[in-house]
């Protein structure tokens, strides 16, 4: 049994890779290697996409570097395609680890014809039907009330699914966050809320964000357990999220998990140069030294299964290759044309949109005066 409301974040592995409590048996070297591979893949995905951005082949990117343990660990607590997920815009690593094909993510970032979202949203706002990975809205915390509703529907239908909803630390200040959390609590709906507390909301620190000591303590306001976990310790994330998900699944009502982590990169490309105005290099460096991937590598070394430089290089090369291939494949499908503007506004095409479409067709195909 894992305790909610601990004063310190729950941790299984120290920063130097030594376990601070016994690791459950399921963490075999193979499992740990697989987690490591996913985290490294995500890290390199960030690198590659930032390059694409610099090349002007996409227009927005929000890295999750430094937060891989949180997102990969959470992914491992989700029964993919069975449970439902209402994610937020920094969750591509969660998506990757849930098995959303890289091709999908890249296509969405590029807004090509291969994008199942049809090039309608800005990059990094994914949706993947197969994985029940629900379409992301930019509007911060707006996923929280729908996630509560999704879980209420699951309860109504009597299915054994749960709903997972993620958000940043900043998101917890929004009214909709509160509304959704309280609704889920009142309905005792099977929802697992996960705060990826990376301690910054663009340039606003968690200290300016709220006077509450921690995020997980806010669960008290909704009568649900609040778990506090070291979000850079993937074992701890998996243990706590896994436990909380099981509790939720077995009818104990919703739960909140706070994963304490850090955004080591910029907020987004729009923020790249601005960082220096609001946080010190020392702070970033201190967190870079607590890197979640390094920690897992230290653990593997400690367990006698070190990741060699060659392994690492091969995995990185593999991700780079995969990204390059998928980018080319996506770009080869071309960009959707003006027609997609009028589809999916409604299930049907009402008259006024039919007329607007006809107008645009005439304009775009040169049929106008």
């Amino acid at each position: 049994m894992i305790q909610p409301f601990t004063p310190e974040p729950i941790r299984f592995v120290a920063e130097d890779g030594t376990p601070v409590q016994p690791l459950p048996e399921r963490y075999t070297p193979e499992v740990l290697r697989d987690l490591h591979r996913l985290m490294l893949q995500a890290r390199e995905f960030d690198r590659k996409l930032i390059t694409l951005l610099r090349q002007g082949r996409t227009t927005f990117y929000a890295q999750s570097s430094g937060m891989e343990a949180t997102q990969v660990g959470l992914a491992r607590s989700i029964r993919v395609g069975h449970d439902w997920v209402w994610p937020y815009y920094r969750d591509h690593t969660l998506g990757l680890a849930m098995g959303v094909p890289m091709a999908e993510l890249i296509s969405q970032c590029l807004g090509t014809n291969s994008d199942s979202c049809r090039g309608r949203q800005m990059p990094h706002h994914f949706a993947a039907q197969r994985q029940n990975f629900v379409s992301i809205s930019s509007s911060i915390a707006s996923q929280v009330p729908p996630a509560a509703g999704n879980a209420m529907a699951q309860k109504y239908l009597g299915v054994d699914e749960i709903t997972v909803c993620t958000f940043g630390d900043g998101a917890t200040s929004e009214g909709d966050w509160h509304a959704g959390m309280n609704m889920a609590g009142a309905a005792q709906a099977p929802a697992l809320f996960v705060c990826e507390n990376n301690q910054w909301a663009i340039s606003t620190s968690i200290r300016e964000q709220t006077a509450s000591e921690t995020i997980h303590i806010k669960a008290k306001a909704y009568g649900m357990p609040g778990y506090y976990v070291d979000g850079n310790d993937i074992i701890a994330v998996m243990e706590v999220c896994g436990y909380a998900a099981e509790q939720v699944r077995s009818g104990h009502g919703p739960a909140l998990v706070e994963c304490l982590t850090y955004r080591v990169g910029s907020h987004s490309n729009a923020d790249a140069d601005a960082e220096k105005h609001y946080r010190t290099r020392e702070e970033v460096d201190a967190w870079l030294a607590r890197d979640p991937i390094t920690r897992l590598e230290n653990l593997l070394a400690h367990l006698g299964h070190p990741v060699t430089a060659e392994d690492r290089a091969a995995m990185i090369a593999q991700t780079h290759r995969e990204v390059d291939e998928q980018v080319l494949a996506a770009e080869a499908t071309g960009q959707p044309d003006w027609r997609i503007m009028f589809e999916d506004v409604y299930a049907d095409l009402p008259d006024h949109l039919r007329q607007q479409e006809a107008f645009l067709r005439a304009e775009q195909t040169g049929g106008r005066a």
Partner: protein
Amino acid sequence: MTATQTRPEAAPMTTGRTINLIQAVTEAIAEEMERDQRVVLFGEDVGARGGVFMATAGLQERFGKNRVFDTPLSEASIVGAAVGMAVRGLRPIAEIQFADYMGPGFDQIISQAAKIRYRSGGQFTAPMVIRTPSGGGVKGGHHHSQSPESYYTHTPGLKVVMPSTPYDAKGLLKAALRGEDPVIYFEPKRLYRAAKGEVPDHDYVVKLGEAAIRREGSDLSLIGYGGVMPDLEKAAGALAAEGVSVEVIDLRSLVPWDRDRVLTSVQKTGRAVLVSEAPRISNFMGEVAYVIQEQAFDYLTAPVGQVAGFDTPYPYVQDKVYLPGANRIVAACVQALNY
């Protein structure tokens, strides 16, 4: 096609019963809940209390607490929960106690309900109905009288309807619930008990996007929707007594709206007066007026006229003065006729 051919009132109603508008709402909900297990109903005080207007009276008893239930006092969570339920396969009916209280749920409506189909390329959709009493005339001051429908008609991805008869109330609600899109269903509260009419015993729907001709006429097209409709009919009656033949059109559905029927009418009459009770600037009737003058310019013998709410908050003491009434409508018609 002439206007009357598709006139819903012309449908055979051998076994019709006379009910009022609020009963029509209750019946529609009950029948849809009966035929579709996916339909659930929730909001503030809709359960044991039956809603503050009693629109949902008896439904919790009949369908159980897991299908009809009270929520915490938060419109954002009511609308948002409906979105999530719809995405997961239910057909939620979310009640907002007064249209004036949609404000806290506004972002859920415009960012989630309205856009999820579009932004996900149709991978996720939100077929749902938000029901809410709206409009003035009940001495409720500005938080129990407003007509916010124009905000929602200005939001692509939403459909917006407002019935004025029991027949339409029932038929539109059923159509909305069977559709695949989010629909904002405004209930003109001052007609809840005042509007009485026949409904057939058999199942029927009123398709979204079709206006109804309430009275045929040749001199002027008088166009409205919702709570003002009885005043339009009264005004048309008064003008008829003076020998003026007014065609009265009830839009019923704002998005989509029935351009064809409106334009056909105005092409015939050459004059149009549009009536609504929402504030004037940026109201929905501005679009109707725009389309009329754009598409029927050469037919117009007078400017399109409007009677709307004033651009002030809705007052308390002057409740009745604020609203367009039959007299003000007659005056606007006379002005158009004398132009």
